[in-house]
């Protein structure tokens, strides 16, 4: 469903993503791990067609994002890192706008909005203005936007960042549930999330994949049975990277 082929992104002389390749099949939840600045967001932005890759390609359900972006984008639901929203709109107004832009109209649109509101537990704030929402609700509103058109591919950039433990738990459950019928790629630097909701995980560092496997494989690979140890062994810290 998601096929990433030798994706590379260069900003000036800095290589943010270096020759990355991996695939995510239907029914798979791939955890995309890595320290800050590893190139996770940049990779996701290329897969979703927000920025063009320097070289390489991403295929969504077999459709190339480089050659047929308009068509490939219809396959994806995307939650950007900072959960951006139009602050002056209401939650329902925003979701209706996103649904229309996805080509939904009439009752199909209203049903999709209602379904997304229910899936993301937004009932209590449905008519509230977005700028009055707390962070957890903002995040879920943006997540609801990604689910509107029932996409086959979900790309979530740090979906649990900044949420409280209850909300984190709910989002993980949601990812797990949605993962049964979709291909999901989600990034995080919280390691417990991998065991909680991923069927497979890759660890990237400075734009390259340094570990790849199911959570149990990765645990075995760590030697000590702790993902943190593996993570610390295969990635470089900020201070080292700068040096």
């Amino acid at each position, binding site marked *: 469903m998601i096929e990433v082929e030798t994706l590379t992104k260069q900003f000036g002389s800095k290589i943010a993503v270096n020759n990355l390749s991996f695939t995510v099949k239907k029914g798979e939840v791939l955890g995309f791990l890595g320290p800050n600045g590893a190139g996770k967001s940049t990779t996701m932005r290329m897969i979703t*067609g*927000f920025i063009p890759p320097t070289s390489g390609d991403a295929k969504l359900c077999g459709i190339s994002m480089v050659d047929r972006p308009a068509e490939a984008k219809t396959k994806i639901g995307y939650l*950007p890192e900072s959960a*951006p929203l*139009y602050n002056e709109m209401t939650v329902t107004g925003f979701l209706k706008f996103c649904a229309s*832009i996805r080509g939904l109209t009439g009752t199909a649109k209203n049903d999709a909005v209602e379904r997304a509101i229910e899936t993301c537990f937004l009932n209590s704030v449905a008519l509230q203005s977005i700028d009055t929402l707390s962070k957890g609700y903002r995040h879920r509103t943006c997540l609801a936007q990604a689910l509107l058109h029932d996409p086959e591919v979900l790309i979530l950039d740090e979906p649990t960042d900044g949420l409280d433990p209850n909300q984190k738990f709910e989002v993980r459950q949601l990812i797990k549930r949605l993962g049964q019928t979709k291909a999901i790629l989600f990034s995080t630097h919280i390691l417990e999330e991998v065991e909680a909701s991923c069927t497979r995980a890759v660890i990237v560092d400075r734009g390259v994949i340094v570990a790849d496997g199911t959570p149990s494989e990765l645990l075995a690979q760590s030697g000590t049975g702790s993902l943190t140890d593996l993570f610390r062994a295969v990635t470089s810290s900020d201070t080292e990277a700068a040096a």
Partner: protein
Amino acid sequence: MSSCTIYKRELSSYFSQPTAYAIIVIFLSLSMGLAFSFGKFMSIGDASLEWTFFFWQPWIYMLLAPAVGMKLWADEQRTGTIELLGTFPVSTWSCILGKFFAAATVWLVALLLTFPIVITVNYLGNPDNGAILAGYIGSFLVCCTFLAITMLVSACTRDQVVCLIVSVAICVTMVLCGYDDFTRELGKAASPGAVEAVVSMGVWDHFSSLNQGLLRLQDLVWFASFIFVCLLGTSAILSSKRA
């Protein structure tokens, strides 16, 4: 279709916030105030509105049009919602057109609300209503030109204030460029060829003839191509920013 969705969202965002109302009220007070004070609307006995009313409008637009257009892309880039737009299955052009027409509609509403002055001249005298219509068209085109410039500038920055200052500077230059008193002074210092080049960059050359009731094709083409070039530039800047 998708530009229509974006158009509706932008327009409702203007009217769900104080922006549009503030601009319309200020525009109406200024244009009426100037017509009745400096324009000597009552004493001059001229029913054509050319000098009393339309003459002042570029001066008002050069300050107020950027205030309407400044948020178009600057805000989108500051809040990160551009990442949503960029990953929806819509082209950059639909977004540009939707936004541009929404801002233009705010001004169209403002301009239409000046109708009492047309009723007044028809009540007091016997004006050429065709010429008044041409004046309105010219005035609206000047405004759209300034909006297009503002849009181009707002694509360059995420800061609305910077966008406002830079666009006002450009618009003021364009108004001054062709203004008689200014070109006379310039004529003393520079060669006639240089003066002509400067004047052709200004809006008066094209606005004045429309204002006199002359609907010349060359003026319409000038406005249309100027606006088109600005929108083309906006599209180029937005895509180069993501590269």
